[in-house]
């Protein structure tokens, strides 16, 4: 996003680029004990919806995270519908009948490895995407040369809406740590969003957007707590600079409800809406 360039510039005027440096260093840290890690979502689009269970692994371990198989997951909505998820592949659980709906609350219960966890979420209202556009910009102090993907659409009146945006470039998601975009409506409540950059000139894999490329944008209206989760995550995975935030754990909505157990879990089970739009750059 544009902010990154501004920060780069601010560092530049601090003469930092002349002398500052980032390098990879060896750090000895102990191997933490494994915790349940949850990733899953329910949306207002037709299912099935998936929940993936893994375990945390030592930070520098490169192996794929161990899957948690044989768990019992149930999902219940505020209208009293309830269903047990099926394990469709190791550690991956899917719904078959439940349909997510704006305004409903959801409770996911996970029984795994002798513990019981609960995660609560909701699906909130959403604005619609008016359009997305690709705008060609020449090189300038703020911008590199190339196409920028812009968002257009109403923001709903009333503070308290939270959003995530995902951009796909020729089918591949822009998914570096810096591409995690979450925002709230605190500063833009009820205004028409008339062209805000969702990307810089580089698309997925660091290649430039060019004529003929397909671009798809997903706009998610997310609950407040999930916004904080993603925002804290974005902070922690991009945490560099003079004014970095002290490292801290990202919140979770997965709580251990087993009496007497203190074993924590990480990750999030979220409810959100999903609106998409796509274009071909001309």
């Amino acid at each position: 996003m544009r902010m990154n360039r501004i920060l780069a510039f601010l560092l530049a005027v601090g003469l930092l680029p002349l002398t500052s440096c980032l390098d990879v260093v060896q750090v000895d840290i102990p191997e933490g004990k494994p915790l349940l890690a949850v990733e899953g979502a329910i949306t207002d689009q037709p299912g099935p919806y998936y929940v993936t269970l893994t375990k945390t692994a030592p930070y520098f371990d490169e192996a794929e995270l161990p899957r948690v198989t044989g768990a019992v997951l149930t999902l219940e909505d505020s209208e009293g519908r309830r269903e047990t998820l099926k394990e469709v592949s190791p550690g991956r659980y899917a719904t078959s009948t439940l349909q997510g709906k704006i305004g409903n609350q959801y409770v996911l219960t996970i029984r795994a490895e002798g513990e019981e966890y609960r995660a609560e979420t909701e699906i909130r209202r959403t604005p619609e995407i008016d359009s997305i556009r690709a705008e060609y910009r020449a090189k300038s102090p703020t911008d590199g040369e190339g196409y920028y993907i812009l968002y257009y659409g109403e923001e709903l009146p009333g503070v308290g809406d939270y959003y995530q945006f995902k951009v796909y470039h020729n089918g591949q998601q822009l998914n570096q740590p810096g591409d995690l975009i979450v925002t709230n409506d605190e500063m833009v409540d009820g205004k028409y969003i008339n062209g805000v950059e969702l990307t810089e000139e580089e698309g997925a894999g660091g290649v430039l957007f060019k004529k003929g490329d397909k671009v798809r944008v997903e706009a998610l209206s997310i609950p407040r707590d999930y916004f904080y989760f993603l925002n804290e995550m974005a902070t922690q995975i991009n945490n560099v600079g003079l004014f970095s935030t002290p490292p801290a754990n990202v919140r979770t909505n997965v709580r251990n409800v087993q009496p007497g157990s203190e074993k924590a879990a990480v990750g999030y089970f979220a409810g959100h809406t999903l609106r998409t739009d796509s274009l071909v750059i001309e």
Partner: protein
Amino acid sequence: MLRFIPLFCLLFLGLKPPVRAQAPATAKVTVSGYLKDAANGEALVGASVVVKSLSVGATANEYGFYSLTLPQGTYTITYTFLGYEAQNVTLTLTENLTRSVRLGTQGLQTDEVVVTGKKPDENVKSTEMGTNRLDMKTVKLVPALLGEVDVIRSIQLLPGISTVGEGASGFNVRGGGVDQNLILLDEAPIYNASHLFGLFSTFNPDAVKDIKLVKGGIPAQYGGRLSSLLDVRMKEGNTQRLGVSGGVGLIMSRLAVEAPIVKDKGSFIVAGRRSYGDLFLKFVPDQKDNQAYFYDLSAKANYILGEKDRVYVSGYLGRDVFAFGKAFKNTLGNRTGTVRWNHVFSSKLFANATALVSKYDYGLGVPEGNQSFDWKSNIVNYSLKADFNYYRTPQSTLNFGAGAIYYTFLPGRVTPIAENSIFRTIALDEQQAVEYSAYMDNEQTFSPRLSAQYGLRLSMFDYLGGGTVYDYEGPNGRQKTPVNPRQYGSGQLIKRYPNLEPRASLRYVLNDNSSLKASYNRMVQYIHLVSNTTASSPLDVWTPSTNNIKPEHADQIAVGYFRNFRDNAYEASVEVFGKRMDNQIDYINGANTLLNKNLEAELLYGRGRAYGAEFYLKKNEGKLTGWVSYTLSRSERQINGINNNNWYVNKYDKTHYLSVVGIYSLSERWTVSGTFSYSTGIATTFPDSRYVYQGLVVPNVNGDVRNNYRVPAYHRLDLAATREGKIDPAKRWHSSWTFSVYNAYARRNAYSIYFRQNEDNPAKTEAVRLAVFGSVLPSVSYNFNF
């Protein structure tokens, strides 16, 4: 609180100095006046006046005023100040007498004047402890970052004073936070003492006369912050002739002009600096619309209205400007104005009245387009106070006074600029508060061995409306819920906090060159810097104590042994301190501290403690001068909702902190110097495990612990050489070149270590070190004066 006052008076006025009994009937007379530098008329703060035959003496105050009461008779009075020729004056005293004295510098090889100084044995003899003075001449010889002499970097070479990293704004004193230092420039508080996000301090060394840092045994006159007082006083300006000084360095240029307004009656100084890194941007096509610079202007004038009255007017304006084409602009800075009026009521009673205003503000925004906005935030204070020094007897000086500070806070206001801006107006409620204070303390010599300074400060803080005020409910460690909203009109009292702050320090002389000292002080802090980043950022906002944020308190006890060797050629001290603090502020994980109208929902409060030992050895004389300072300390806090409610070390906790400073005079013209610093790495939280969410690797630490690791130890060597121009007594022009090398062995000291997935292979994770200065930084600067 009124019931304390009789006790208060009793304590101060009821104490009969023991000496009075020994010297009865003879009538007493007082000799008073000012001590000044003969060459430029600057007041000699802390110079001493001694009558050897009676073993009594006095010290010149911040304005150079002294007062000494003696029995009638004939005496030889000796006026001394470090670096100056002593003067003996024989006077026959039959009635009160005014006698101002000018002292000349020793070895008149340059015009460079050491104004800060002290008695050679003040280290041992004064009741002050936990106090460091730096003279600007030394500061100028110590190697400086990019050749720019820096007051705040220099004090970090002293025991008990550290920083979270180079480039970090502010400093930490005895395990306290950066917002716990009262930084005064001619009595006006400075709310952000740095330029360029912390690389340079706001003080122009050419305009600074005297720097004093008090970290323990803080006199009752000062209050409002927990950890220290940094008292910076500007030069008054040459009363004898026009003087010009300046310098050209890699980063900035400086110019100062001082001159008499009317010779011996008044003078002024105007000093300015500007960085010019941005001028190079103009030559880069890509960058030509970008701006990045800072400047500051210091000005001061004083005028003697008569025998008994003089006025001082001083002002400071500093600004940092960053603009990124038309895409972004950020400006910030301090401005202060101080008017002081000294009045000598009698030869024994000196008074100073001060009126001042100080403001720190920042603005940032996008000037045009659909994302244009303007964001402003500031803190302003207006302050009135009166301070009195009453020189009762040679054994007792009473200091008393009162003051009030009116604050306004603009936590943040965002307004859209262009018609089509997507932003709306957001304004957090402006806040107001008044801080009142009154104090009295007594410097009492009980015997040649035992002296003390003890006092009491009464302070009170009124948090005033208007706006909406909430209470907050919910478990600690998570965002709380605002409840019970209440409306207050502008100026309506929301919450009042009165406090008593006792202060005391004691000195016991063991023999001619050693003493023991002890001190206790209670400090209260009513305004707090809300900062959730490793180093405080210029966008951090000051907040008053409110109905939810309580004033911070600190109790500190310190004891010290002070000893000078070889006729004061060496001074040494060991001080041990312990400090307890309450209502310390911390933040929930992921707290949002900007533009948050429910900021208090994200704050947590708890206890702090710090303790340590400081060792200091300084060599004052000879070709080689300098010092070694070593601090062993610990600084911790306990906050419900963080680290499972257990104690944890503060990020700025440094177990070991060592500085070695050496200045060697090679010849008349060449001086070389070096500094070496070593400190334990800052405390931080390292993950022990990872998980993947949305395809991104997220670090996690078991047990949600805080500050479980240290970044690697910090150490650095800096070198400098100064070559003075030819010394030609016939010419007034004098110049020097300074060559310096910062970070001489190019160590990549870790400012922070963070964890990320590899850019090319997300399955691979790595720890990345940010070093602010990753290489050697050489520089050259040229300085002149005439």
